[in-house]
């Protein structure tokens, strides 16, 4: 039944739209507003249901270029997931350890992981970039970034 990718996406969107619509009906009423806060969400939910159904039943054939875009090797997908994981750990730790140290570590390891082999340049950029950004944001723009374990 779900032979095309559009049908699969259409079904997922239909479910999301149904949940959104269900939640829209749970919104509390406010007696004095001529148009309450739930009107637009309800309208959007219905519109999304209709559009996802239209996508499901659409007879548009996927072009070669569109197929090519979806064709990502598993190995590359894992690389992408690893980059997302690195960003996740960066976010998790950067208020604790601090902007400068975490940024230097992130730039070095992610560049190395993605295939950059010039060690010296990598180390120089990894150290100078966070220091430069920290100086611009904290001293020039007055925007504070987490110090973390460093005393500056």
């Amino acid at each position: 039944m779900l032979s095309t990718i559009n049908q699969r996406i259409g079904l997922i969107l239909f479910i999301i739209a149904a949940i959104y619509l269900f939640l829209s009906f749970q919104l509390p009423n406010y007696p004095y507003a001529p148009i309450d806060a739930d009107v637009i969400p309800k309208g959007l939910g219905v519109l999304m249901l209709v559009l996802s159904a239209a996508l499901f039943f659409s007879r548009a054939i996927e072009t070669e270029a569109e197929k090519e875009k979806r064709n990502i090797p598993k190995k590359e997908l894992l690389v992408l997931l690893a980059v997302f994981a690195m960003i996740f750990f960066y976010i998790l730790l950067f208020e604790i350890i601090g902007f400068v140290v975490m940024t230097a570590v992130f730039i070095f390891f992610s560049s190395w992981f993605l295939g950059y082999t010039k060690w010296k340049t990598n180390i120089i950029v990894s150290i100078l970039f966070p220091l430069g950004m920290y100086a611009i944001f904290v001293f020039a723009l007055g925007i504070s970034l987490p110090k973390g374990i460093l005393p500056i």
Partner: protein
Amino acid sequence: MNAFDGMITGFQVALSWEGILFVLIGVIVGTLIGMMPGLGPISAIAIMIPITYGMDPAPALVMMAGVYYGAVFGGSTSSILLNAPGISGTVATAFDGYPMAQQGKAGKALAIAAIASFFGGTVSVIMLMLLAPALSSVAISFGPPAYFALMLMGLTAISSLSEGSTIKAMISAVAGVMVVTIGIDPQTGTQRFTFGNVNLFEGFDFLIIALGLFAIAEVCMLVLNRKNRSLSDDQKLGSLKVTRADLKEMSGPMTRQSFVGFILGVLPGAGATIASFISYIFEKRISKNPEEFGKGSIKGLAAPESSNNAATSGAFVPLLSLGIPGSGTTAVMLGAFLVLGVQPGPLLMTDRPEIFWGIIASMYLGNIFLLVLNLPLIPYLAKILSIPRPLLISLVIMFSLIGVYSISFNVFDLYMLLVFGALGFAMRVFSFPAPPFILAFILGGMMEQAFRQSMTISNGSLAIFVDSPLPLSLILIAFLSLVIPSILKWRSRRKLAKM
């Protein structure tokens, strides 16, 4: 204030030392970011927004405008040198620019692109100066129903003109408005879809969406294409000299396509990409030697280059005069205005003339800077293309994270950036266009407000949208802009099936 007085005010802003400095910074940074394949004006503007926190709105917005057209200008460099367009608006530039580079005439191609961009940019700034105030004075009388209809028209136009499936573009737009509904409703104070999470009370900042959907999604594409070549050191640019005969040859396409580009830029939904393709096809059709196109034709290079720059300035007409962006990039520009506490629209010209005219005047200056600086500096600026992809990826991720963190100093926003980055990547993989999403996100809140105001005025009757001619005609255009392209696509599919 008439246009002449306005321009004097504008040049006072643009020619102050602050104005000159920030236009210069804007065009250089824009050019550099625009050059990098994958990173376009949306990412460039979004990345630069945190830098403007704490700045005066006038120089900050002048700088952001410089980033915008600088990025469009820079996009052509990577198109010509690498056949890897920095932005979609410069795809057509590569058709003839890259063959010229392969023939050892990269320098000449870059110089022609710079001159054509300058010409297109300047012509359209003059037209912007004439058209925007006129539109502003008309728009001042718009009521909420007309505004709602206008925004609806902008949204449907961009959905129907997006590449690929119209249904997917509409889904993208509806999803954009759905995301806006998250947070506390400003009119009734009702919490919508927050699940009691304090971090969601204010809704999402547009920078999270812009950087996630564009910059982080670009990063994902860069990760997948990280082994693609970058500029090698031994690549020769050749002479930058443009002869008189070359100038004569490009003068026709430049003049024609500057006007075409401007008009397409003003129309909601069209923008630089469509303008450059239409100009290229147009010139090829009327050319006496169409077979030269695609093999290094000067006309084929000058036409899309003047057109995409003209479209960029044209896109400022609805943004400055109506306060309504017509494309994804101008939606992010509108976000930059709002971050700085400036509401673009019909009142901008009277309330903040220094900003309205300052931006227009700065564009004259910016175009001159782009031409004068870039011609001699092209060989040096092009070095940025030799930045290794892995390093570039890490740096773009960092810029995006710092940008989002400096809005609210909230780690939750960073996680959301990651979520919207994943969403942006999924949208690319499954061919859902992102510009309708960001445009809907920016317009969604305003649309809801205009809709509810209209309904309050009419005591809940939808007839208010069809009672007067202006909203009615705008809604009709919105409807037709969705229906006509769909019918045309359906007919062409049927013809193909019969063949």
